[in-house]
């Protein structure tokens, strides 16, 4: 499992134009270019500003509940009888998932920008809830675009967003899921660019979003780095995280990219990779342009974007962040996939062994342990990013596991 030296070289993506090798960029209408330049500048100024950094760190600590623990999963470890398994507990963040790390960062940027209206897209509703939450906390108006299909399967999160004062706009075009919600959010932004700040929820979209969201999320990996050193006195051998757009995974992986640590991104195989119903963009897609960047994409023989499928709304997206595309091509990260059924089974097993109900998204990462663990030894240390908790998925679990 030793990595080639070339893969450990210092990593400096993206370049000034937002490219991770050939992936990324700013494929957006002219109307948005000025806003993207301004956002880039706003972000670069902010991260140089000690006061901004202090406010970000303090809000993550006193409001979002960071640092999150790194929990040793002793019974799951015993179950496989091989390497030691740890969980990075993003499920314990305020609002129930890692999404809030990014929304705290972006809402502070929004405050700096002076724009009074916040928009966001959401799939599972976790990013919508995290955005509505910070918008309420800062006192800004919030509109969340959500596919009608997702509104049905994530009803609880819709109620949360409404209670938080957000206006949830159902999107009825196309697949009625995250893809179309994102398109509608971008159309809103093009229309209201003067007074609106768009908080994107994953490492997707035009530059600077993939870079910015990664940098706000890499607190996950930075904490893990320190925590695992203190628990094991060494770095982990393997990191595992689920990948939809890819924000929790890149947040976990990024601080380890220059280290001798193996990384595995787990996509949703839905009903199976050999069916038409999956969301395994990196495993089965080809490069193309969607939502402002060049990246792997599920598309048909005419270059129309295919519908994705996953039981997990948060992974149900035919695109993926451009940085993951570059990491796939370079071989630095290995991307695998897990079906709906494998994820459900893993969620059941994990809950009974560890007393933690994982989000369906995170259950994909946990499910991969079934394949991974037999190849590990007792000396190995594996960290899984438990990106969110399963409360929002209880209706699905109740239906599918009984």
């Amino acid at each position, binding site marked *: 499992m030793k990595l080639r030296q070339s893969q450990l070289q210092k990593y400096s993506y993206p370049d000034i134009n937002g490219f991770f090798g050939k992936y990324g960029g700013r494929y957006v209408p002219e109307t948005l270019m000025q806003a993207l330049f301004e956002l880039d500048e706003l972000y670069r100024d902010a991260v140089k500003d000690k006061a901004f950094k202090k406010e970000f760190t303090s809000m993550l600590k006193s409001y979002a509940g960071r640092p999150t623990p790194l929990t040793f999963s002793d019974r799951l470890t015993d179950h496989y009888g091989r390497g030691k398994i740890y969980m990075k507990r993003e499920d314990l963040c305020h609002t129930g998932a890692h999404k809030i790390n990014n929304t705290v960062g972006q809402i502070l940027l929004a405050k700096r920008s002076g724009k009074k209206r916040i928009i966001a897209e959401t799939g599972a509703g976790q990013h919508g809830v995290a955005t509505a939450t910070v918008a309420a906390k800062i006192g800004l108006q919030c509109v969340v675009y959500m596919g009608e299909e997702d509104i049905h399967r994530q009803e609880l999160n819709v109620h949360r967003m409404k209670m938080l004062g957000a206006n949830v706009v159902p999107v009825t075009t196309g697949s009625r899921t995250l893809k*179309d919600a994102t398109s509608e959010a971008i159309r809103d932004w093009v229309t209201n660019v003067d007074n609106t700040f768009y908080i994107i929820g994953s490492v997707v979209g035009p530059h600077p979003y993939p870079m910015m969201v990664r940098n706000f999320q890499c607190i996950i990996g930075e904490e893990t780095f320190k925590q695992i050193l203190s628990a094991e006195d060494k770095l982990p051998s393997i990191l595992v995280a689920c990948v939809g757009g890819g924000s929790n995974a890149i947040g976990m992986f990024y601080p380890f990219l220059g280290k001798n640590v193996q990384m595995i991104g787990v996509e949703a195989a839905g009903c199976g990779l050999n069916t038409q119903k999956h969301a395994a963009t990196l495993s089965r897609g*080809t490069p193309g342009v969607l939502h402002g960047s060049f990246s792997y994409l599920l598309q048909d023989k005419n270059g129309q974007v295919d519908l994705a499928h996953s039981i997990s709304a948060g992974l149900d997206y035919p695109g993926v962040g451009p940085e993951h595309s570059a990491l796939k091509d370079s071989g630095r990260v290995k991307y695998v996939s897990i079906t709906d059924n494998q994820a459900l089974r893993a969620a059941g097993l994990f809950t009974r062994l560890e007393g933690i109900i994982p989000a369906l998204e995170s259950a994909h990462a946990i499910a991969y342990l079934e394949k991974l663990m037999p190849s590990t030894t007792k000396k190995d240390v594996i960290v899984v990013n438990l990106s969110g908790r399963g409360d929002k998925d209880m209706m699905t679990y109740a239906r599918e596991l009984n």
Partner: protein
Amino acid sequence: MKIKKQLKGNRIAPLFHSLKEKNNKALTLFITAGYPKKNSTVPLALRIAESGADIIELGMPFSDPLADGPVIQTSSQQAIKNGITLKLVLAQVKEIRKHCEIPLILMGYLNPILHYGENKFFADAKKAGIDGIILPEVPLEESARFLSLNRKYNLADILFVSPATPEKRIREIDKTASGFIYCVSTTGVTGKSNIGNIGSYIKRVKKNAVKNPVLVGFGIKTPADARNIARHADGIIIGSALIKKITQKEPLLKIGKWAADMKRALH
């Protein structure tokens, strides 16, 4: 010598040359290829061409048209359901070319073009008789590879400016562009907002875009809109308002009359 080459290879520059001589403005009409039926494109295009359109813009349907409002979104979805593909669009262009020499431009999102192969697509488009390809997802920063393909095939470099574009950037865009500049009337998507008082905005664009004709599009619905804008701009682009008529199943004859009314408003 240069003009001769343009005349031979591309129909856009000569059009504006002759419109200018007549002190007339350009009417560009947009239709979604393959809508309402897969084979509607050619008869519709020929009808609006003979009714007064100066340029025809053919929309190549995409599953996720970010810059388009509900009217063009719906027409694109239907056209994809009808089975339209880039290959078919180009075949329809060839068919139109058998009957008329009107400047023809394509409008489309990047992904299907990349999937087709960008070099092959630009070459095939030129061969079919296209004069320019509008790519609403390609701002100046990402345009280099497409501009070099345009140069290779003598296609127009049609770029956008919007109310959010600063004056210095308008000048850069004007320097790079050829054919015409697509001036978006308001921030937003196609067909949605009504045209307000945009005279001073167009004047600002015209002041900075000295090299290229400036055509205004997005939200133009009535001959009155057309007349107002034509006072300042070199022409207009209408899409959603026309697609709406097509969706309402107005007969070709009435659509032709509507196009003629629009053209008259530009005199």
